[in-house]
Structure formats: C-alpha cells, structure tokens
C-alpha cells in the first residue's frame, strides 16, 4: 500500500467530514445546533481534562474549579473593567492556569495521588463555589448577567447559534489537534510514562513533578477558556453551574466513557452522553426521575462492561482481531 494513496484517502476523508460538519448548520434547526454545540463544548472540556486525567494519569474530580475560574474571570473583567471577552478568554485561561499551577504545586509537591488527589480537587472546587456564593450574595445574589450588545463578533455575542456552533467546533478541533500533537511527541510520551509508572519515569530522567505541572497547566488553561465560552453562550452566570460538582462530573464523564487517554475518546463520550441524556429526557422526561434512572443505569453498565471506555473497548477488540490474524 503506497503512502501517497493513504494520504489522498486521509485528505479526502478530512475534506468530506469537514465539509459535512461545516455545512451542518445549514440543515439543522436551533435545537439540534444547541445539541451539537453542547457535544463540541463538552468534547472540548473533556479533551482538556483528558490531558491531565487521561494522559498524565492525574484523576481530577474538581475541574469545575478551573471552569468556574474561567467563567468568572472573563465575565467580571468584562463587566467591571470593560475588558473585551476575547481578551477575557485569554486572561481567563491564564487565571485558570495560575490556579492549576498553585493547586498542582501543592498536591504534587506533597505527593497526592489517586483518590486523594481526586478528593482534593473536589474540595477545591467546592471552596471556590462557597467563596463565589458569599461574594455574590451581596452583589449578584441570583447570578451575573452580561449586558446584551446584539450580534457582535467583537463582543463574542450572537443572537443566532450558528456562530457559536463554529466557535465551539473550532475550539474542539483545536483541543483534539493539540491532544494529538502532544500524544506523538516527547511531552505526551512523558505524560503517559508518569501515568503508567511514576518511579520508572523518574528513573528514566523525567522530572515527574514538572511534567505533572505542565499537564495541569495545559488542562486548566483550556478548561478555563471553556468557562468563558460558557459565559458568552448563556450570557448569565451563577456559582452552581460554574463551580458545581455537577460540572466536574460532566467534564470527566465524556473522556471516561469514551476512553481516557485517547484523542477521540472525549468526543465520542460527549456525543454518546449528550445523545443519551437528550433522548431519555425527551422520551421519558415527563415521568419524574425516570430519565435520570436510565442514565444512571447505563453509566453503571458501561463501566462494568467497558472498563476502558468505548475507545478502549474498540482498541482491545481490534488488537484481538489483528492478533488472531497474525497467529493463523
């Protein structure tokens, strides 16, 4: 099989898929647009989590801390200092990264691992939520509203969903690309080495502490950037959907279900979860609680039967098939 041939196919595939995705808004109603925006958005956040949790193996149960930091940073800068939300987005990322480096420094310096690290992150997000609640009680008891400016690319506000669709798609594509970029390079190999075996990594000359911090910084930066997108999409923020444990869970669920430590796992997971939650809600939402029962049950079964996520399951099957072939 010639390489050139393969390349042509790849390019063709990308063109077709890209064209399909870029053209999709022409065919979709707003509901489906929202549905896809949520998939892209959570795939983006999932990818951000994936770099730290899936590749570097540091299971964060409190990514809402970074997300909420992003949500609040750009919004408050916009409202109180008139900072443009696009610049705010960058600053939000930096703020998230700063927080990530801070908590990462403490956690990794004192060797928090596994469930302990997960719980520390959970507590961090909860602490930030409480601070937000207390701070907002006297100023914005029911949330902060970003002033409307109509359709404006400059102000990152659109009356229609189509621009959000493209922005979220670009963000996701960027995150997936970044993940792939990292995966095949030294830094990605180092992350995986740390995930698999810290002392062996250290013995091979990897500054484990430093690389964990790098993973944390990238992950926190992206997650906080996602926070700004969230603010600008809803134009209204409050503490629960910024710092709540629900957001932390939603962020990590995609990569876990889809396959942590794989490039497309977060996208696959986000797609499946959004689809599942929308369909169960649409068909069973009228019966109080039934849709979440089913959602919970599906989650339980996926974890029992696909412990490495869907991508992991696919890879395993693929491996078995190819192995079977080489044997015969």
């Amino acid at each position, binding site marked *: 099989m010639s390489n050139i041939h393969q390349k042509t196919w790849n390019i063709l595939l990308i063109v077709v898929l890209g064209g399909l995705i870029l053209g999709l808004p022409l065919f979709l109603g707003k509901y489906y647009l929202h549905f896809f925006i*949520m998939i892209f958005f959570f795939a983006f956040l999932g990818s951000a989590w994936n770099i730290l949790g899936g590749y570097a193996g540091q299971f964060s149960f409190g990514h809402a801390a970074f997300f909420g930091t992003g949500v609040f940073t750009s919004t408050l800068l916009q409202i109180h200092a008139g900072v443009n939300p696009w610049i705010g987005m960058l600053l939000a990322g930096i703020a998230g990264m700063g927080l990530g480096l801070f908590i990462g420094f403490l956690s990794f310096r004192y060797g928090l691992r596994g469930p302990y690290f997960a719980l520390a992150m959970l507590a961090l997000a909860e602490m930030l939520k409480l601070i937000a609640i207390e701070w907002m009680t006297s100023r914005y008891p029911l949330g902060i509203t970003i002033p409307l400016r109509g359709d404006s690319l400059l102000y990152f506000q659109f009356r229609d969903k189509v621009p959000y669709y493209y922005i979220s798609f670009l963000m996701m594509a960027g995150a997936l690309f970044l993940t792939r970029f990292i995966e095949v390079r030294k830094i990605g190999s180092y992350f995986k080495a740390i995930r698999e075996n810290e002392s062996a990594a250290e013995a091979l000359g990897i500054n484990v502490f430093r690389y964990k911090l790098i993973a944390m910084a990238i992950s926190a930066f992206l997650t906080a950037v996602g926070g700004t997108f969230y603010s600008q999409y809803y134009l209204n923020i409050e503490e629960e959907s910024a710092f709540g444990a629900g957001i932390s869970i939603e962020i990590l669920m995609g990569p876990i279900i889809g396959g942590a430590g794989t490039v497309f796992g977060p996208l696959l997971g986000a797609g499946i979860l959004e689809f599942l939650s929308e369909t169960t809600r649409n068909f069973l939402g009228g019966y109080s609680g039934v849709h979440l029962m089913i959602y919970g049950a599906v989650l339980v079964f996926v974890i029992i039967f696909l412990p490495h996520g869907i991508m992991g399951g696919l890879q395993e099957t693929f491996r078995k098939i190819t192995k079977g072939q080489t044997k015969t």
Partner: protein
Amino acid sequence: MESKKKSRKGYEINRRTFLKMAGVTGLAASPIAFPAVLRGAAPKEILIGSIHPITGPVAYDGTSLDQAVHLAVDQKNAAGGIKSMGGAKIKVALMDSEGKPKVGEAAAEKLIRDGCVALLGCYQSPVAMVTTAVAERHGVPHLITVGVADELLERGFKYTFRTQPDASNMAELTCKYLRQLSDKFNIALKTIAVLHISGFGAVVNSKLAKFASRYGFEIIGSVSYGIGTPDITTEISKIKGMNGDVIVDVGYLSDGILKIRTYNDLKVEPKGGIIGCANGAFSNPSMVKEMGRLAEFLMDGNYWHNPRSAFARSVIEEYNKKYTRVIFQSHAVHAYNATLVVIDALERAGTSDPGKLRDAIARTSFKDHIAPGGPIEFDTTGQNKNAMATLQQVQKREIKAILPDEFSDAKPVFPIPPWSAKA
C-alpha cells in the same frame, strides 16, 4: 393551523438570510417542515411548553408548578378549548430542566422546534435567564411562572412576562403589614433581624433593607445560611441573640422545616413574632401538613391566592383532587395564572402565531385570575403591575390570608402565641 405553519416556516427562513446563500431555503425548511406536517395531520392542537425542575433538590416546587400549568390547560380543554380558534385543544409539553441552564436551553429549543407557541417556566432564575433568551431569539412569548430575579425583566426583552409580584413588592408589603399589625394590636415594633438563605433570600434581604425604614423599622442584623445546610442551630441562636422585635425569615421549604423545629427547640419568641417573607415554607400547605402543631400561627408575607374568590377555591380543590403527588402551594397560584394569561391571549388573538400571541399578552387585562389584586396587566418590562403579596397565617392547620382585609379570610392572631401554647 395552516397560517401558523406558513409563518413558522417563513420565520426560520428569515433567521437564516444572513447566510446569504441561495437555494438554502428549501433545505433549511425541510427538516423543520417535517414535524410541522406531522402536527398538521393531527387534530387541532396548540402546543405550549412547560420547563420546570422535576428532578433534583427542588423537584417538589417544579412539580407543583407544572401541575398548575396542566390543570389550567385541562380545564380549558374540558370547557371546549380555544373558542376563537374553533375549539382548538391545547397540549402541554413538559421538559425537565434538572435545574441546569444548559438543560433549560436544550428544553426551550426543543419545545420551540416542536412548535410550542409559548413557554412557561422555570422557577430557578438562572435557568429562566437562559430560557427567556431562547424565547426572545425565536420570538416566542415566555411567561415566568415563578422566578424572582429582577434581571429577568431588565434586559429589554419583548417576549418575557411575569405575573408574580416581584421581590420588592413582597418585601415592601411584608413591612407594611407588620406595621399595620403593630398599630392595630398596639405592640411597639421597631427592630427587625433577618434570617435568610443565600441566593434569592439575599435578594429579598436587600429589598427588606430598602423598605424597612419607610415603615418605621430598623434592621439590626441579618444572618445568612446556605442551601442544603444540615444543621441550623447556631444560625438561629445567633439571630435569637440579636433580640430584635421581629424576626423576618426567608427560605425554601426544606430548610424551613429545620428552622421551624429549631425555633421551637430554642424557644425563639420575639415580641413581634417570626414572620416569613416570600418564604417557601411558611405559607406552604405541605409544611403545615408535615409540621402539624409547630406550624400553627406562623405568618408569611408572600404571594397567595385570593381566598375571597370562589373560583380560586374551586381551582385549589380541583388541584388537590387531581394531584396527590404534590399538593397545592402558593407557587402554583402564579403558574396557574400565567397559563390563564396565555389561554386568554390565545382566545383574544384567535391565532397561535407567536408574534401575535405576544402582542395579545402585552395587551392583557385579565380579571378572572386566582390571585389577590386587580386585573393582570403588564408594564413595558413585562411585569404584572397589579400583582401583590398578602400576609398569611396558619390557623388551625390551615393557611389563611389575614391582611389586607379585602383579600383576607381570617383575622390575625397577634401577638403570635408562644411555642408551648401551640396545639
């Protein structure tokens, strides 16, 4: 129906013209037209959406609101549907918001896509912030069933309306009624201590601070607590220690249950009593049912139905006959009223075109509702000008309105008897 279908299609196309792409029209219309055709095949039916949290910690309130929407619609359908539209029946499509803005947005989009001509929701203001924005974008009227945030109506939205009295109204009238009680029973009341939950409680607290002095009160302190706090003894000890003449209490049903028990345990008995303001527990029949003796004589300045209205009483009776899952509570009054407003507007507009429906709602002057006060009329922001809070008191295991006189069905018992005297 026919006209509606066309206009919906036309609307979608207009929204997309900015794409400046020829030939898009047919493509864009087809997936949207498909369900519309299906709807067309069904008998005349007007769809309205109900977005409420029917799962999670506030599922109780969400369910009571949704039931009220259903009740109003069922009654109208039983009475022959929308007469001006040839007896068209209305159908309520319920979507769970799970209390999340993200889910609320999806719900609103889906309901509008499915052809809902009006939305009703959402209880939690952050969710309503999002759903009203969706409705505004699509040009579909959105009635707020319950949602206290001022911001909901401060964004210049044309399609958002609220029948419920706002936080200012409830806070001001609570102060006013307190002053009236003080004068009538000749008990000097000067100082107020406020115990409030964060979030909406903080809003009410700030409004109380604004209006207290107008009625001769001084706020000597406030204590706040968080949602889902497992124990509230220290907070209540704190407020007790402030020795105010009156304790004004703001919160939800769940924390209210804990507070009432703790007030009793600590024998908190200020001379002007413990008075709720916009309190989700104090004028809630469910609380009365659950707390029994301890509920007796509790007061609350809150929205409530008009006890003098036979219609209101019959609605409640029917509600409780029909729904045993969650019984009638004050929230349901405004969910019911909001639905009536939509029905009335449909009747007057004679069309389900959302734009025309919106104009009809804006021109509402609706007398046959179940709340106290004058006819429902909206100001330019969409707020019901004539909404008003009343003062309720639990008397003999029933919630009675006691002030103002013209909307009351009992005399106030004041000063509030001590906890030990409750039977």
